[in-house]
């Protein structure tokens, strides 16, 4: 029985030996290195280029600008493109750091040196800059958003009369919570290697969606998708920033076409701050109205997030309030603040990630006001059905998650007053966790060979989540093989189309397709063995009637039939599963922090994360995902921000020294993860839902709540830095 086993990662050997190859590790004969020149101002036009000095740099072959680039035949709009603006197509500058020229060199050193020698004259125009992060300012500047393809939910929703109920409520919390823009900073900078053979393009890219890149570039270049092959065997971390198409992919392909040589672009770390998206600055106003016992009568949630002048990216934080607690009335709104900044994008965790920062802080303030235990307040408002639509949940065991989490943490027996540990004051806090369930159609093939090995083919991606282990486990389970005998081939548009590896969707989506394909194989083998597919079971390399003691070896059955291999196909169509049900994942996070008031220091001491997510295919990889999410939440709470200079219109520190993400010394070993035993039969055949992002929700609020417990200071603006804590 493979599913449910904590088997070690099948990609272990290639990753610990450095044998796994990422896009920047690849070369092509006659390849040129591409390095971009970027605009140093947020708005304006490029007037003129002087390429002379750059071209004089030994090894520089070409300097491409918008004057050289062909204009695509189609305009891009919406996903799979991250925004509907392709640079190097005109002289317009829409944000600082926008690519405006591309230097191609025989060596990296030549291209990098050449890029610094391209002289550009600009005509600046007045840039729209982000206003001060005060609700009053944002309320004035914010606009009703326009849907240019990036609306994944509704920007407005209401049920009942929330404003009136809020005004009449016996207990009321109204507060504004904010968080600054921050960047994903995966360890692998995005890279792309583009090669043309005639009118056929092969693109190696660090991406979360090979098919998305294929579809997008095929449309952009007006060539049939079959003439575009996208390959991504391993992506070095993504977290949302490699899910859609950013400019370097198209530009590298265009450059390769122009010079008739392969072109490889590896973005610099600085480029990662302007070429790609980020989680934008978000300010949220929460209103909670409750009775004396804490039962919510009204929830209002108004969100304004920063976006570019090109498209409205909306961070749907209101989804948290829409789906978590039972309430008679709610009013939710999302608005955009447009400025000459790069386009934001989804970041682990989007939507409920920011949403719970506000909602779970607000709930804690309400609990304090009421004098009730924060966990009891959550329980008092438990939603047995979807609060917005009334739809039943596909599966929800959040009560069990709260209870077990509290037990593991010792929540009910925690000392009410903050304790001391030397100079540290200890605080405890908790929050609910919540994530939506995204599902994408997927296909897969499974081939069983007479030697008892199997190969899975699916155009999914490896971004580190455990896919390379989980999909073989599913096949091993169905076909009675050892997981080590099953190999997954992925990351290539020549393989059956699978969905993107984002939205915590892969295990349930591609996994379902793989499950179906394996069942198809078993069914075919069964017929060869004169068994009905429904009554066949496979164990230890043999097939038999379910319950029978003796089975026939796979090789015997296949040899008898004169077959050397059996191919099965499978698909997952989300529309066929769970219609009429509301699907989400849930959890609770409990944290213990230490605060050194004199020095303004905040440190994490221990965490318990307890989750209701459905079936866990591999507890080992699941634990890593959930811990990873918790660390992301800690980063959001305690340190992450990308300071933006309004005068210059740019993110100030485009590096890893001026921007802090957690290091090893920040993270304690005492992080306990619990997943409630649960199978969600409605969501999909695997019985599980996603876990990649859930762990990152709720943490920031739990931390702020713990800080309040420790030192009595309510912080409503992230991150919680020494500046905000020092006595």
């Amino acid at each position: 029985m493979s599913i449910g086993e904590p088997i070690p990662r099948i990609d272990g050997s290639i990753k610990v030996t450095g044998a796994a190859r990422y896009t920047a590790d690849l070369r092509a004969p006659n390849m040129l290195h591409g390095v971009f020149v970027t605009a140093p101002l947020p708005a304006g036009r490029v007037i003129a280029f002087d390429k002379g000095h750059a071209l004089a740099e030994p090894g520089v072959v070409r300097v491409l600008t918008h004057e050289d680039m062909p204009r695509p035949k189609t305009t891009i709009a919406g996903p799979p493109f991250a925004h509907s603006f392709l640079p190097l197509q005109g002289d317009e500058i829409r944000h600082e750091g926008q690519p405006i020229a591309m230097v191609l060199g025989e060596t990296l050193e030549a291209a990098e040196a050449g890029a610094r020698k391209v002289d550009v004259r600009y005509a600046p125009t007045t840039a729209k800059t982000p206003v001060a992060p005060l609700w009053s300012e944002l309320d004035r500047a914010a606009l009703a958003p326009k849907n240019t393809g990036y609306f994944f939910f509704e920007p407005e929703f209401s049920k009942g009369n929330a404003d009136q109920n809020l005004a009449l409520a016996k207990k009321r919390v109204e507060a504004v919570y904010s968080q600054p823009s921050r960047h994903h900073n995966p360890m692998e900078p995005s890279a792309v290697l583009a090669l043309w053979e005639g009118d056929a393009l092969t693109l190696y890219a660090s991406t979360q969606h090979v098919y998305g890149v294929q579809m997008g570039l095929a449309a952009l270049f007006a060539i049939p998708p079959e003439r575009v092959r996208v390959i991504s065997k391993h992506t070095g971390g993504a977290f949302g920033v490699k899910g859609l198409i950013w400019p370097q992919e198209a530009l590298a392909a265009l450059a390769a076409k122009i010079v008739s040589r392969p072109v490889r672009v590896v973005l610099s770390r600085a480029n990662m701050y302007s070429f790609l998206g980020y989680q934008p600055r978000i300010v949220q106003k929460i209103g909670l109205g409750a009775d004396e016992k804490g039962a919510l009568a009204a929830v209002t949630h108004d969100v304004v997030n920063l976006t570019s002048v090109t498209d409205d990216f909306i961070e749907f934080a209101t989804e948290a309030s829409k789906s978590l607690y039972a309430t008679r009335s709610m009013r939710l709104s999302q608005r955009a603040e447009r400025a000459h900044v790069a386009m934001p994008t989804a970041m682990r965790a989007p939507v409920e990630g920011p949403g719970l920062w506000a909602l779970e802080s607000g709930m804690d303030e309400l609990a304090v006001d009421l004098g009730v235990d924060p966990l009891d307040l959550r329980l008092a408002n438990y939603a047995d059905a979807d609060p917005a639509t009334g739809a039943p949940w596909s599966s929800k065991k959040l009560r069990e998650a709260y209870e077990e989490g509290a037990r593991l943490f010792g929540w009910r027996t925690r000392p009410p007053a903050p304790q001391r540990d030397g100079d540290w004051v200890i605080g405890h806090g908790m929050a609910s966790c919540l994530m939506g369930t995204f599902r994408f159609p997927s296909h897969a093939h499974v081939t069983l060979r007479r030697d008892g090995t199997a190969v899975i083919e699916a155009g999914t991606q490896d971004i580190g989540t455990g896919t390379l282990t989980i999909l073989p486990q599913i096949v091993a389970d169905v076909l009675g093989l050892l997981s080590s005998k099953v190999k997954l081939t992925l990351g290539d548009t020549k393989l059956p189309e699978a969905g993107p590896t984002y939205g915590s969707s892969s295990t349930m989506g591609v996994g379902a397709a793989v499950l179906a394909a394996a069942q198809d194989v078993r069914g075919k083998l069964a017929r060869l063995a004169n068994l009905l597919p429904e009554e066949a079971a496979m164990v230890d390399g043999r097939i038999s009637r379910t319950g029978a003691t003796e089975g026939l070896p796979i090789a015997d059955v296949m040899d008898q039939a004169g077959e050397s291999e059996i191919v099965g196909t499978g698909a997952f169509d989300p529309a066929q599963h769970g219609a009429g049900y509301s699907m989400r994942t849930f959890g609770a996070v409990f944290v213990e922090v230490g605060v050194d008031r004199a020095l303004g220091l905040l440190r994490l001491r221990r965490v318990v994360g307890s989750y209701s997510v459905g079936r866990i295919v591999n507890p080992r990889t699941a634990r890593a995902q959930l811990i990873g999410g918790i660390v992301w939440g800690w980063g959001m709470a305690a340190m992450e921000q990308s300071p933006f200079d309004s005068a210059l219109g740019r993110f100030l520190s485009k590096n890893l020294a001026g921007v802090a993400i957690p290091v090893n010394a920040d993270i304690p070993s005492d992080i306990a993860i619990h997943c409630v035993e649960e199978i969600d039969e409605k969501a999909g055949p695997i019985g599980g839902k996603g876990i990649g992002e859930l762990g990152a929700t709720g943490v920031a609020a739990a931390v702020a709540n713990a800080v309040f417990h420790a030192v009595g200071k309510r912080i409503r603006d992230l991150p919680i830095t020494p500046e905000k804590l020092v006595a």
Partner: protein
Amino acid sequence: MEFRSHLTVALRVNGRRYEVPVDTRTTLLDLLREHLELTGTKKGCNFGECGACTVHLNGRRVNGCMILAASAEGAEVTTIEGLAEDGKLHPVQQAFIDHDAFQCGFCTPGQVMSAVALIREGHARSAAEIREWMSGNLCRCSSYPQILSAVEAAASQATAG
């Protein structure tokens, strides 16, 4: 004193001798990745701010992006490709698998090279010490607790063995 704008660097990498013509600007990291096609060592930031490029130079762990190839003349360099012996994983590599100490794998070569050196340095005396001395290797997938477990296990195996 002789100044050159191009030179040939002679060095040993993973026990093998190479003579590599380089630009004076070429870093050790780019010599390994672009000239010797040893791509196991990764470029995460190219500013010494992430540790993904960690290799051993004359027995010490260092950031490959912070060394000019020219400075590595005559040096003994070990990269991730040079750890396993005769196809058998180094105990630290095995510990990383056993303790699930990676996810996307991009920072992993640097983590492993750091851990091997850390144990040799004698900086595995406590969990706190390991965490601190491994903090020069960023991991955005955030496998930190698992990395700690792997290093602890490999270190106690090293003391026992």
